[in-house]
C-alpha cells in the first residue's frame, strides 16, 4: 500500500477513535471538537474540489458555507415558531428534519456557486480571487442588513434538528452522523477525481490550452466543479449550524473563507484527505495555542507562512512524499 493510503486510513481511524474514547470517558466537549473537525473537513473537501483539482483559488467559499447555514437557520426557525415560510402561491413550512435541510443546503450552495461561478469564471487568476472575495463580502453585508432572520445578531435554534432513527442531541450520535456524511462525500470526491470529468478538470488546471485543443471547454468544466464544490460546502454549512444551533453573518465573513482555504493548505492541496488532516490540525492548534495565548492567531499566521514558504505540500506532503499519486 502507498504511504498516503496508509496515512489516510490512520487519519480516518484516529478521527473515529478519539471521540469513541471521549464517549467512553464521558468527555462530551472532545466529541464536539471532533464533530467540528469532521464538519469543517467537509467544507474543505468541497473547496479542494475547486482548488485542488480545478486550480480555482476561491476566496469566497464562506458564501456556500453560509448559505448552507442559513438554509438550516431559516427552515428551523420557521418550524420552531410555527410560521410558514410562505403561504402564497403555495404553502411552504419550515422543517426540523435534517435530510430535508441538507437537500436544501446542497441545492442552495450549488445555485449560489453556479451564479457566482458563471460570473467570476469569466475571468482568471487574480481577478477571480478578488471577485470571489468581493461576492463573499456582498453576502456578508446582505445577511447583516436583512433583518428578517436576525440581521447582525444571527438566529438561534433551540433544539437540534432531527434525523430519522437517531437522537441527534446525543453528541456521539451526531458525530457518527457527520462522520458518515464525510465518508460519503470523500467517496464521491474520490470517484469524481478518477472519472472522465476529473481527468478533464485536472487537465484544464494544468494546461487549459491543451484541453481546448482536444475540443473541451475549460469554462464549463470549471463551472461544474465550482458548483459541485459549492454544494458540498453548503452541506457542511448546514451541519455546522446544527452543531452550534446558531447561525450568524460570521459564517459569510472573509475570515471564514480564509480558514476553509487554510484547512486545505495545512493538509495539502489536491490530496483527497488534505482537508481532513488540515481541519484536524487547525482545531488542535486552536485549542493548544488558544490555551497558551489569547493571541494564538499570531502563531497560526507564522505557521501558515512557514508552510507556504517552505513546505508547499502541506502535512501530507511532509509525511507521505511530494508526488501526488496517479491511479
Amino acid at each position: 500500500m502507498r504511504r498516503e493510503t496508509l496515512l489516510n486510513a490512520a487519519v480516518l481511524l484516529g478521527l473515529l477513535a478519539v471521540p469513541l474514547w471521549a464517549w467512553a470517558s464521558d468527555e462530551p466537549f472532545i466529541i464536539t471538537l471532533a464533530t467540528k473537525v469532521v464538519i469543517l473537513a467537509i467544507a474543505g473537501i468541497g473547496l479542494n474540489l475547486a482548488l485542488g483539482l480545478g486550480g480555482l483559488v476561491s476566496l469566497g467559499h464562506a458564501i456556500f458555507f453560509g448559505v448552507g447555514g442559513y438554509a438550516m437557520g431559516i427552515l428551523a426557525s420557521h418550524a420552531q415558531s410555527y410560521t410558514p415560510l410562505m403561504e402564497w402561491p403555495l404553502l411552504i413550512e419550515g422543517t426540523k428534519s435534517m435530510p430535508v435541510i441538507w437537500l436544501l443546503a446542497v441545492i442552495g450552495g450549488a445555485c449560489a456557486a453556479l451564479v457566482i461561478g458563471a460570473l467570476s469564471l469569466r475571468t482568471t487568476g487574480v481577478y477571480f480571487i478578488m471577485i470571489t472575495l468581493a461576492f463573499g463580502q456582498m453576502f456578508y453585508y446582505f445577511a447583516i442588513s436583512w433583518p428578517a432572520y436576525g440581521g447582525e445578531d444571527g438566529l438561534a435554534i433551540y433544539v437540534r434538528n432531527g434525523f430519522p432513527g437517531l437522537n441527534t442531541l446525543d453528541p456521539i450520535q451526531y458525530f457518527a452522523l457527520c462522520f458518515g456524511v464525510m465518508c460519503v462525500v470523500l467517496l464521491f470526491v474520490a470517484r469524481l477525481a478518477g472519472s472522465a470529468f476529473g481527468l478533464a478538470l485536472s487537465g484544464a488546471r494544468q494546461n487549459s490550452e491543451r484541453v481546448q485543443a482536444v475540443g473541451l471547454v475549460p469554462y464549463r468544466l470549471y463551472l461544474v466543479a465550482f458548483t459541485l464544490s459549492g454544494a458540498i460546502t453548503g452541506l457542511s454549512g448546514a451541519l455546522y449550524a446544527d452543531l452550534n444551533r446558531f447561525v450568524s453573518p460570521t459564517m459569510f465573513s472573509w475570515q471564514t473563507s480564509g480558514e476553509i482555504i487554510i484547512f486545505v493548505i495545512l493538509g495539502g492541496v489536491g490530496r483527497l484527505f488534505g482537508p481532513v488532516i488540515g481541519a484536524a490540525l487547525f482545531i488542535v492548534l486552536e485549542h493548544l495555542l488558544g490555551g497558551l495565548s489569547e493571541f494564538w492567531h499570531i502563531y497560526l499566521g507564522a505557521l501558515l507562512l512557514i508552510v507556504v514558504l517552505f513546505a508547499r505540500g502541506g502535512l501530507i506532503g511532509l509525511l507521505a512524499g511530494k508526488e501526488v499519486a496517479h491511479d
Partner: protein
Amino acid sequence: MTDPILDVRGISKSFGALKASNDVSLDLRDGEIHALIGPNGAGKSTLIQQIAGGLRPDTGTIWFDGVNITAESTVARARRGLGRTFQISSLAMEFTVLQNVMLGALGRRGGAFRFLSPVMKDRALLETAHAALAQVGLEDFASATTAELSHGQRRQLEVAVALTLSPRVFLMDEPMAGLGTEGSHRLMDFLGTLRHRAPILLVEHDMDAVFYLADRISVLVYGQIIATGTADEIRANREVRTAYLGEEEDA
C-alpha cells in the same frame, strides 16, 4: 480537383503598425503535406494561431470543409477535426503519458461530463489511447509522468494526442524541433504515412524534412506568402532564394 479541406482566404492581422499576416491565402488538400516555411519573425506562429482559433484575423476568412469557421473558437474548430500540435509542448505535465492521450480520447468522444465511472478503466478510450501511443512509439512509456519525458518524447506525445482526436486535418507547429537525427527520421517516416489518413499543414524549420516530406511548400516572408509550389519549384524560385534560402545558406 477536389475542394481543399482547409482554405485560408486573404487573411490579414496587424498588431499596431506590424502586419503579422498580410493577405495570406493558402489551402490544404486531401492526402498532402503542405509545409509552411519562412524565416523567424515571418509570422508563422500568428498564422497558425489564426487557423487554430487562438487569434481572430482582422480581415479574410478561413474555411474548413466548406464551412466558414473564421468566427469559431478553438474548441469548436477542434471538434470539427482540426488536430493541433504545439510548437512548445503543451501537455498536462503532472499527468502520466497515458492520461494525456486519454484526455485526447475524451475530447474525441465529445464530452467529459461523466462523473462517477473510473475513466482509466474505460475500455473504448483506453483502446484509442494505447493505439495512438503505439503509433508514435511511446507505448513503453504509458505510465511515466509526462514531466519526466525527454524533449523528443514530449513531441511524440503531442502527435499521439492529436492522433486520438482522429482529426480531419493536422496542424503541426514544428514537430521536429529539438529532436535528434534519429528521432527526426522516425517522425518523418511516420508523418509520411500519416498524410493518407489526414492532410497535414506543417510548420517546420528543418529544411531536409520539409523538402523530403512536403507535397507543396508555401514560403512566408514578412507576413506575406511569396511563393507556393512543389519542392522543386520552390528550390528554383529566385524570389525565395534571395529572400530566404539564400540567407539560410549564408548562415
